């Protein structure tokens, strides 16, 4: 498996995302550009320019027409995917750390940072794909207590939103009322990533406490857990073909200069989703892995690292014939 190296960013990657069909790959980094790539050959399709600060998060709607991005310049921006036009800018008090479209593309959520006296919030906006001007008035503002939100995502049918907190809690919010419906305290440190299964009935969390966990979206019951020996930054459920999950991370970015690449543990680790055993690793990054995304067809995946590279991996035939004994 020879990965394709995408060298379009000058700083650490923060999030990468495939569109629903998997033909496009969006990547954002701490430099101020959003890149879009053809996922099958790594050719760059274009960029979305305009942000004034590090971009923390990106999401594309299900028909690949709209793109939303959240940035440290205290804005979230809506873009036209096809021609790169900026459609709308939402301004927040603090950095926007996470954005996501709802399943039906009608709403977006934004997680904002807690800073300079402003509390960390989760903002819900309605998005209308048919018109150019979007509402600047949030439908709801949720202030998670006592620990701020770090990541969040929409459940299926817009039932709930699932929130990962800085203290390791995972909770279920009613986004209309802002009420906490359920909360579990399995993780011991900050939740770094939260990604849903294809049908959004379960999701995986990764945490700096070196474990990843699978939860049921309705009950928040912890179904599986995957302990590792390194702080995790990202985790994804393999959507098709194999019953795997992939996690990635590595030593904290600030400590990397003092350690060799080998002890940094900058590898994508494949675990068997059901048996919780590690089945393989993919090396290559020379900094911590910040984000992992899987192609919806399950035949390739990408990882973005602190080293500024995105590595797109297409599996070799032996991946498909691999039998877990």
């Amino acid at each position, binding site marked *: 498996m020879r990965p394709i190296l995408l060298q379009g960013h000058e700083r650490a990657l923060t999030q990468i995302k495939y569109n629903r069909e998997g033909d496009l790959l969006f990547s954002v980094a701490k430099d101020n550009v959003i890149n879009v790539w053809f996922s*099958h*050959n790594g050719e760059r399709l274009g960029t979305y320019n305009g942000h004034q600060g590090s971009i923390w998060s990106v999401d594309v709607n*299900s028909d690949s027409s709209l793109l939303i991005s959240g940035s440290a310049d205290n804005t979230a921006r809506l873009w036209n995917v096809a021609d790169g036009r900026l459609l709308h800018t939402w301004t927040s008090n603090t950095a926007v750390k996470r954005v996501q479209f709802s*399943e*039906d593309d009608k709403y977006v959520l934004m997680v904002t940072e807690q800073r300079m006296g402003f509390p960390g919030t989760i903002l819900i906006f309605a998005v209308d794909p048919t018109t150019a001007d979007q509402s600047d008035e949030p439908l709801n503002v949720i202030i998670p207590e006592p620990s701020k939100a770090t990541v969040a995502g929409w459940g*299926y*049918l817009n*039932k709930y939103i699932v929130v990962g907190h800085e203290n390791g809690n995972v909770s279920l919010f009613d986004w209309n009322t802002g009420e906490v419906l359920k909360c579990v305290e399995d993780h011991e440190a900050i939740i770094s990533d939260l990604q849903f299964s*294809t*049908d*959004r*009935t*379960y999701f995986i969390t990764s945490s700096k406490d070196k474990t990843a966990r699978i939860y*049921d*979206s*309705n009950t928040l019951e912890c*179904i599986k857990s995957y302990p590792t*020996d390194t702080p995790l930054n990202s985790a994804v459920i393999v959507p*098709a073909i194999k019953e795997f999950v992939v996690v990635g991370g590595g030593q904290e970015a600030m400590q990397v200069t003092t*350690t060799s690449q*080998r*002890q940094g543990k900058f590898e994508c680790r494949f675990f068997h*989703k*059901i*048996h919780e055993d590690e089945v393989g690793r993919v090396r290559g990054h020379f900094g911590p892995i910040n984000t992992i995304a899987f192609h919806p067809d399950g035949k390739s995946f990408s990882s973005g690292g602190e080293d500024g590279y995105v590595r797109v991996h297409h599996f070799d035939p032996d991946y498909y014939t691999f039998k877990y004994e």
Partner: protein
Amino acid sequence: MPALDPRNLPASEADIDFSDIEEKYHLTFNESFDNVVVVDNLPVVDESKLDRLLSVVKKIFKPAGTIKEDGLFMPTSIDPNSGKTMTQGYLFMEFNTPEQASAAIKQLDGFKLDKTHILAVHKYTDVERYATMNDTYKEPVIPPYEEREHLKSWLLDPKCRDQFVALRGDEVAVMANNKNGKPDTVFTRSKWTESYLQWSPRGTYLTTYHRQGVVLWGGASWSKIMRFIHPNVKLSDFSPHEKFLVTFSPDAINHEAVGMANPSENPFGPEDDGNHLCVWDIRTGNLLRSFPMPQMANKDTAGPSIKDAWPHFKWSSDDRYFARVVPGQMLSIYEAPSMGLLDRKSIKVEGISDFAWSPVPGRPGRLGTKGDANKPTDYTLAYWTPEMNNQPARVTLINVPTKEVLRTKNLFNTTDCKLYWHPSGEYLCVKVDRLSKTKKSTSSNLEIFLLSDRALPVETIELKETVVSFAWEPKGKQPRFAVITTVDPSAVQFNASGMAVQSVRNTVSFYEPEPLSKLKRAATNMTHGNFKCKNTLEKKPTTALLWSPNGRYIILGSLRSTTVWDMEFWDMDYPLDNKKNGATEMRLLTSPEHYGVTDVEWDPTGRYVVSYASAWRHSMENGFIVWDCKGTLLGKFTYEKFKQFLWRPRPPTLLTEEDKKRIAKKIPELAPKFEEEDLMSESAASSAVIMKRRRAVEEWNAWRAKAEKEYLEECQMMGKTPMYRSTSANAGDESANVETIEEWVEEVIEETEEVVE
């Protein structure tokens, strides 16, 4: 004090209440007799000799402290027979301070004035105390007999598994190693020890360290067997038969500060104050004796740190003697369990640096031949002294307890010596580091003493490089050893936690005796010839020689390095197939790498070996790997903050050599049965795993089915079409959605230019 009330002043001076001031400035007069000692067993002399006797006594006691003026009082009485004034054989002596008095007792109690007069020096207060003792016998309360657990129960394991203890963060786990490398947990306990763990030499007890002292644990239930109170204890050491325990604390003992709830549990008395070392009886838990740290001759130079010179007391293999050096001055040999000095005095050896007991009693080949009922109980002890006062450095072998000097050997240009006894006691190798004549480079000599010969001949092997490590093969048909040599031993740099920061290029050499021809053997009565270098491996990063406890296998390890982590498994007796004469050769079996390895521990049977990376040295991939003796990886275990791994030692086998041979002969007969058992347990284990996995898959599928059903129901209820269908439903029409992208890539492989005419 109540505030002064001017309306209510005392009428006269006598009415003023001074009691508070008196209390505050109360003076205590020194009325104690702590500085008075009683010296008994003095000769009985008449008046004419009294002055001479007193001056002799004064002279003897002068080093202990200053005797007060008129501080000597010797009672006399008039002998009714001769009418002369005779002394009564004892005197009182008053020192300036109580400390001097106790020093006098420590130094001079038991002093030999002459053959018949051995002084008894005691505190006056003690004499008084014992004189006023209640004479009526009080029956001591005998606690009811409590049956002790079987302390060696782990040896009865039906699968003969060896146990080990692992310290992972704060958690201590005792585990049993299995053939497949997946150990079973026997017992775990969190925060069992405050610093580290230690097994007793025969594996009976597990030692844990606490602020108040050490505790021994054992038996099948891992209950507390005995505790030894020694505040801030840092090091401990067992005698070889586990009868005695030596503990060391950097804090001087203060018997009043021990602070036990029950004063009778305080093991210390005033005589222990200021001491750092304690010798305990393990069975009873009693303190046998406490020792101060040895006084250095030159008080400005600190002695070697206790950590480097631990064990401080070295025991003879039968627990009968233990000895220590006062560096530069003397060798003190004590007897156990009486704790007294052998012959009541130390052996004065100027400059003495280090010593070593022979590992077995008697002299091989001379005393205690086979079947001898009177097993020898004497030991050979070797010590060395460095060059001083125009005297060459010297290695001396003496007999204990006779103290007879058996052999000395002078050494020249010596900077350091290390003594290595062969486990059989037949050989003593002295590694001598020497300076070249120009004093610029160093090299080493190996001086091998042959103990089985009456004349104690010495064989010298001169090496061009400096020896950094030496190791005898623990067992084997003939004595063999391995050495690591290097050109410049000071070139390696270490970081704060003792890890080498650059790799080294060392040479590893293997030595064994030359075979002798039959004729020569008969003529010289020797079984082996001189030691010869059999093999040399050059430019190796090896820093440690790790022989299997059974011999034959050796690991050349690169431990505690930040750059290399090689482990080379060598078989020293690899059988050569094509020859049936039992010819063997040395062969590298495998050379795996264990990233971050800091320590290697062989199990006591030599079947398995564990390498581990300890969090005490670094924090990279802490954990351990279990290998078999041939270097096959059996299991790898990583733990956060893994600190220590220790195999549980086994006591020496009770089988005789004949028994062992008989069992070895039966192995081919019994092997099929064992193999069958292994297969059975393996298939049982794998079927258990399969069952577990099947269950996991079933549970997962059941949960998925339920979640998907709920999802679809909810979709229907809300009147929405599900955005995503489950993968199984979706599989059929997948091919219809596939879009084929064809890509043409043109690549110029070669471009040649030809001129067409």
